[in-house]
């Protein structure tokens, strides 16, 4: 008999329901500066006492149905896994406040299998390499560029980029990974079926199309409270063995993530910045305190997969074409296949002018997706991941 459950267990699902029920109470605790991770580490009973729920809450919890939650998740097209299932990322359990259940949406057929590919499962002794990239929401143009480049380079080398899809650095890191069709996981503070922030809906879709995953510990449709964000950060910190802070002010959420990562014994690294900029106060302070210094993708790769691994990964990326997104239309996929086939000019793809119109539009679409590029002389090239490193 396996030591794992095949379906989410009722206790874990009930824990999720409890979190949603006491969300308001947790907000009060958060306002009173109770470290949210300590609160979330509490057993159900103690948690109810702490938020002052009493009998009434206990009764409501007892009356709630874990099956309804499963049904709601299915309706929202979310896979559910609990800490007793084999798909649950082992490294999360380093944290005593690890989420009881996770709700996952991923591109492709099997969201749970996809998540295992991205961050490993409970049976993985050595999970796939992953790096968390976090930073301020009010990032500078340079910061965004660095985050995008790191996301792109790490993902191109096959390293999963974990972040929170927040505005600024987080989104840039995801966008970089998506650009090379690489692995990326977004951990949301609210329900995994709700793209948040709303402005990043396109990125949300792109992450899924690139074969990435969106994860949350809160039930479907849940609107995030303030405490959910530091709570989300603890999942980010636990998921990846390395956390890179790109730009962060003093006393910011990104620094909280870095602290959480340190507590879990994770590697923390930071990108240095100008000493006078408020955006680099936090990162420079981390560096002073001994965080690893990140200048470029190579530094990040050295940290994530070791110096030997970096060389191998870069060599591998040189030959690997950037995979098309899963949602690519069949016509474009056929066009891409034709280009891969060596029909590398517009003329060889279509003979007549009206065909040239649609083919040109299609090629531009592929170009905007970063799948091909135009070389001098009107030739088309399939882009490889090496360009991104």
């Amino acid at each position, binding site marked *: 008999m396996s030591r794992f459950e095949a379906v989410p267990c009722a206790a874990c699902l009930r824990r999720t329901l409890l979190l949603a029920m006491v969300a308001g109470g947790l907000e009060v605790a958060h306002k009173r500066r109770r470290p949210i991770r300590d609160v979330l580490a509490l057993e159900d009973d103690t948690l109810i006492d702490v938020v002052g729920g009493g009998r009434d809450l206990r009764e409501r919890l007892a009356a709630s149905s874990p099956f309804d939650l499963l049904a709601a998740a299915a309706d929202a097209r979310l896979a559910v896994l609990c800490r007793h299932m084999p798909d649950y990322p082992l490294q999360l359990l380093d944290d005593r406040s690890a989420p009881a259940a996770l709700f996952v949406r991923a591109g492709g057929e099997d969201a749970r299998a996809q998540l295992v590919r991205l961050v490993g499962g409970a049976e993985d002794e050595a999970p796939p390499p992953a790096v968390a990239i976090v930073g301020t929401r009010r990032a500078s143009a340079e910061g965004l560029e660095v985050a*995008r480049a790191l996301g792109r380079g790490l993902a191109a080398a096959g390293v999963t980029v974990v972040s929170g899809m927040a505005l600024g650095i987080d989104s840039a890191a995801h966008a970089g990974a998506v650009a090379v069709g690489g692995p990326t996981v977004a951990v949301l503070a609210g329900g995994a079926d709700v793209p948040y922030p709303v402005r990043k809906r396109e990125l949300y879709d792109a992450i899924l199309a690139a074969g990435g995953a969106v994860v949350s510990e809160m039930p479907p449709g849940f609107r995030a409270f303030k405490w959910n964000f530091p709570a989300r950060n603890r999942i980010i910190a636990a998921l990846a063995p390395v956390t890179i802070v790109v730009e962060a002010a003093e006393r910011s959420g990104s620094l909280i993530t870095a602290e959480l990562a340190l507590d879990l014994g994770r590697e923390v690294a930071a990108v240095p910045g100008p000493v006078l900029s408020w955006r680099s106060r936090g990162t420079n302070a981390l560096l002073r305190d001994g965080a690893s210094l990140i200048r470029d993708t190579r530094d990040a790769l050295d940290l994530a997969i070791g110096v030997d691994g970096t060389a191998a990964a870069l060599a591998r990326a040189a030959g690997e074409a950037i995979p098309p997104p899963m949602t690519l239309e069949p016509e474009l996929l056929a066009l891409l296949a034709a280009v891969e086939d060596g029909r590398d*000019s517009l*003329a060889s793809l*279509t003979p007549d*002018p009206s065909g040239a119109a649609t083919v040109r*539009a299609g090629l531009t679409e592929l*170009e905007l997706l970063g799948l091909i590029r135009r*070389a001098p002389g*009107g030739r088309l090239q399939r882009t490889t991941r090496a*360009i991104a490193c």
Partner: protein
Amino acid sequence: MLAHVTTFAIQGVESRRVTVEVDIRPGLPAFTIVGLGDRAVREARERVRSAVLNSGFEFPARRITVNLAPAALRKEGPGFDLAIACGVLAAGGQLPTEVLERVAVFGELALGGELRPCRGVLAVAEGAASAGLEGLVLPAVHGREAALVDGLGVFGASGLGEVAAILRGESDGQPPPRDDGPAARVAGRVLDLADVRGHGSPLRALTIAAAGGHNLLLAGPPGTGKTMLAQRLPSILPPLSRAEAIEVTRIQGVAGLRPGAGLVDERPFRAPHHTISASGLVGGGGLPTPGEATLAHHGVLFLDELAEFTRPALEALRQPLEDGRVAIVRGQRRSVFPTRFMLVASTNPCPCGYAGSPRCRCGEADVARYRRRLSGPLLDRMDLLVDVLRPTPADFAAGPLCSSEHERARVVAARERQAARLAGTGAACNAHLDGALVRRKVALEPEGAAVLRRAYDRGTLSPRGHDRVLRVAQTIADLEDAPIVGAEHLLEALGFRQDVAEGAEEDAA
């Protein structure tokens, strides 16, 4: 005795009224011309004297003073000969003077008294009509050109004797030759798109460029057909409107092209060699004459091997491209020439011309340097870039992909849609839309806007390129009679953008 004769001087592509005053006084025989004439005007004395004598008139052996008024206007060329001769005859009592108040004369004289063709007849005829004169006496060969002006009596003459007969009222001169209509003129070989084999993508670009009046850059290895394609562009451009045709005729008349021809009915196609100077391209000279840019007005200016043109020449094209006209200032004179042309240029993709094929021997740096030479303000004005590759043997075996007649019909329909939409804005076609008009007049589907934003975010599009792509996308939509610019139109337009592959690596860390 004093006589006044009205004639006209050419300035830019317009004419200015000039009154020739001739005074004959008793005294030692002399013949003086004053009034800021150039060498050709001063030499008119000899031509006029011989012509008068050889036409059977008497040349007064007295003191003759000729003044060309206004005296401050510089006068050049031999076009004043006839006016001076008529003035001499009238002042000497050999011609009636009063008719010369109502009729202008214009033409160069040969020593034998015959009239020679000269430049700018249409401009002169327009000047005569607007000055309220009844008629114009001119070399018979130009009759058809002058007859284009309504409400002006045109009297063609072949020599001074005939001019005298006309002025005396004894003759009506030679009627302007009958216009044989376009059908008779299309005897020469017409370049048609049906001659082209293969080149599907460049042909599409030609149609789009013609439909929107867009500037086009053809890039490709030597000998693939860039020039051949460009030469066929006029065949799919909409026919000249009457106003445009008159303007083109006037310009060609001033430049001395096609003497004796009537209304121009083909859009001009000018292909100057790359050694051309800046003033050759945009006009210039002591007496400013139109350059290639003006000769291409309402037509096509084709610059083959764009990278070989000198930098000053290309720089000089900026104002004409931007404003549709060029102002040439020389000394105290300022001439404005119209320059609304479509710019078509061709270039090799790299110094050796074979970029993209194994034959190419250029390094990455060479290609970059070559592209930099091209870049700058001129490349900024190129709305469409298309790669012209070698046609395959299969292309040659296949039939033509399209015909000029068919494409021209589509172009004309697209232009009509533009004219309806842009009525009252001063722009005639999409290429003339400036930034503000693009935002006001180009209606974008939400999906199209999303495509544009993505391209911009990827860094493949500059702010200027943004407007350019919108203009082209609007033309593509017009070609398809789409009421609104959609994603597919924008995607195709983006495929023609000229900043190839430069933005692609820019953000790679």
